[in-house]
């Protein structure tokens, strides 16, 4: 393959590719790379300096030890393209028989460190991960200045090479867990990993699982805390969060940030989150069970007031609840997509619609609005958006069972949910296990 000719033919297809001829240490060479990834003027300044240094030491430019770059010996087309796609620059001689690959001055294509967007921190470090993998690794290193931290990097995928970094703390992580993860990663799959679903498939996690097998966090201190407690952290390039393996039930309730509060307050926060989960999952089902199947459980006063508030409501309790839940879910979903400028308007309109008009139109009872508002608020007491969404599904199961079998159905539903989360495990670590560094499981 004649390199300059290949690059020129490639340039015809890809206008982003530049082929710049220049003189370095008295030799006429081509410099090639992607304009969008390389800061050309800065890189040329750097190159000239490197070439001068090499000449001063009496080394030829394309020598292995010239210090300019890594020589590529008769590279294949794919190797050249991979090097370019990775953002490296190539220098090749006019004849094209010699070639160097070097790291140029790149353009800044990542945002600066910012505060997290989905996890708020009240007390604690507020810088969050961003899209740049090296920044993320650096952030974790800053938060965990320890010599036990081990880093292994992999490149996954065939047509898209995604850089992936596995971090763990030597001596803290359970050996079996580490082996399982490393074994999977070292198969270096041909499938691309464009999203977390693909990653989940690659790890062999069930496709229809309600509970994600990895916990995600935007916060470096959460990742560092997980590492220190013997979990593994996976960072993917262009993903602004860390994947913590394995995920546990306690991830819903326990955040490292809590430890910045006094212990009693920390435990009350956690208790509150547990209550929040129970309220969120049980309340809609309980309402339907008590209103339509087992009204004898209610006290007479509240039974009468609910009966009064439901007077004239045309639908059975289940349909009524599902209707309002649908609107609530729509509100939640649309709130994510709304431009921030329109957000408050929708909140106001939604509030008026849900709060007043629906009741006055006698479509639903006002007790139900209280119940569902409480349930929705309670939903977001748990840590992690992915956990909150998993909970949202659970309440529908309880709702349907309650509508059929009343309070009994509610309890059957709880048993079903408990059985389900009891069987979930990540690389052999049960979801319900109580995690302690260095402890054996399974």
């Amino acid at each position, binding site marked *: 393959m004649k390199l300059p000719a290949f690059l020129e033919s490639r340039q015809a297809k890809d206008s982003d590719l530049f082929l710049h001829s220049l003189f370095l240490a008295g030799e006429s060479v081509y410099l090639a790379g992607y304009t969008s990834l390389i800061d050309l003027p800065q890189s040329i300044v750097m190159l000239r300096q490197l070439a001068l240094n090499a000449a001063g030491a009496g080394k030829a430019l394309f020598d292995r030890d010239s210090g300019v770059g890594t020589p590529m010996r008769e590279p294949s087309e794919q190797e050249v393209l991979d090097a370019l796609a990775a953002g490296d620059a190539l220098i090749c001689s006019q004849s094209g028989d010699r070639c160097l690959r070097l790291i140029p001055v790149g353009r800044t294509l990542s945002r600066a460190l910012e505060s997290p967007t989905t996890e708020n921190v009240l007390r604690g470090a507020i810088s969050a991960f961003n899209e740049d993998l090296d920044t993320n690794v650096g952030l974790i290193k800053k938060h965990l200045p320890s010599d036990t931290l081990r880093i292994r990097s992999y490149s996954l995928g065939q047509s898209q090479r995604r850089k992936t970094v596995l971090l763990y703390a030597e001596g803290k992580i359970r050996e079996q867990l580490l082996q399982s993860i490393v074994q999977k990663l070292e198969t270096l799959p041909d499938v691309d990993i464009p999203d977390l679903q693909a990653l989940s498939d690659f790890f062999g996690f069930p496709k229809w699982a309600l509970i994600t097998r990895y916990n995600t966090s935007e916060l470096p201190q959460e990742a560092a805390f997980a590492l220190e407690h013997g979990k593994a952290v996976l960072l993917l390039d262009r993903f602004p969060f860390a994947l913590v393996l394995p995920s546990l039930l306690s991830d819903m309730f326990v955040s490292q940030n809590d430890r910045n509060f006094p212990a009693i307050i920390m435990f009350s926060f956690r208790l509150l989150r547990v209550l929040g989960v129970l309220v969120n999952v049980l309340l809609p089902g309980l309402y339907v069970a008590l209103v339509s199947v087992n009204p004898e459980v209610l006290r*007479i006063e509240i039974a009468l007031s609910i009966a009064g508030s439901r007077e004239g409501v045309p639908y059975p309790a289940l349909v009524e609840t599902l209707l309002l839940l649908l609107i609530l879910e729509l509100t939640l979903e649309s709130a994510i997509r709304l431009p921030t400028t329109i957000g408050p308007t929708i909140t106001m309109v939604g509030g008026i619609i849900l709060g007043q008009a629906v009741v006055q139109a006698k479509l639903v009872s006002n007790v139900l609005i209280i119940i569902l508002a409480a349930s929705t608020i309670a939903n977001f007491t748990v840590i992690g958006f992915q956990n909150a969404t998993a909970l949202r599904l659970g309440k529908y199961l309880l709702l349907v069972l309650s509508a059929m079998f009343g309070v009994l159905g509610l309890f059957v539903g709880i048993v079903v949910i408990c059985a389900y989360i009891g069987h979930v495990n990540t690389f052999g670590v049960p979801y319900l296990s109580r995690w302690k560094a260095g402890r054996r499981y399974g």
Partner: protein
Amino acid sequence: MRISARRLVLFAVVLAGTLALSGCWDIKDINHRSLPVVMGVKQIDDTYKVLLLIPDATPSRTDVKIISQSGSTIDEILDKIDRNMENKVDLLHLKVIIFERSVAEKGLSQSVESFMRARDISNKTLTAISVGALEPLFDKLTSSSTSDGTEMYDFFEKNAGWSPEVVQTRIWEVFRSMDSFTRDVVIPTIQPGLSTTIESNGAAVIKNGRMVGVIDSDESLLYNLFKGTGTQGKIEVMNHATVKIVADRLTRSSELKEGQATMKGRLHLKVTVLETVGAPTEAEIKQEIDEQLSARFQSMLRAAQAKEADILGIGQYFRDKLSRENLRQWRTKYYPFMKIEFKVHVIIQDEGLLKMKR
């Protein structure tokens, strides 16, 4: 994990089965049920008449209505009412059952048995006996109902309007007494009040499901003390002082010698002095309480013994001392001749804001 076709079919079958077999289309929402709070039972010759007090809830306020129907059995009457009502009559929330005095005198057995057998009536429903006719009482309940018709329930409810002079008797207790050798019950008597909705002036003595006598309010208090129902807050009026009972405890022992049953009861009271007339000493007050309560207790017991109605369930303390044959005769052979030594031991816990003579 791939979901195999077999699993999908299984899932579909389970889902279809659950939906088809659940029977949830028979479920009636709470606003399609009538929830009677009070039921009145009266008897005219051989036919029963049942009155139901049903709160009728609307979003803004709650009205109360009375539904009545007659028939030969209570079940038949309820069936008739259900047929004619626009809602399903649901007795799950029935709180109080009121019998007219004439029903109680003829015997409650048939109706109590049918209540116990009915699955939707709670066994802990309270009972009461109306001294006069039922209709004026129900009219009074309707006309004075300010909220949701739960006045009658609140009257007996411990965390609402209950006071220690009112006896609480549940339907299962009446049922238990009907077949028991050694236990009878009292059922509170009520009537429409002049200024208040309801007035209670004592209780009816029920022996084997039949009303045989009455006790008054003061005796009802003693009955409650004996049963161990908390009587805190009670004001006891005497010649020289008014005291409030703060805590009470009863110890008892029983003895059976040569066919003579003897019971020793000792009531420990802690009281607070609220008011004095003149200047009684502590000892005087203590003695007066003892004398007054003991005398009242003895007179209540004499009356009950004369009717052979063991309302305090004293026979329970002799169950391990008598054979089953003899237990059968407890009411006739032993109870009327039983002796009881009743002492009241008083501790004045607090003299209130008064200076008292030692």
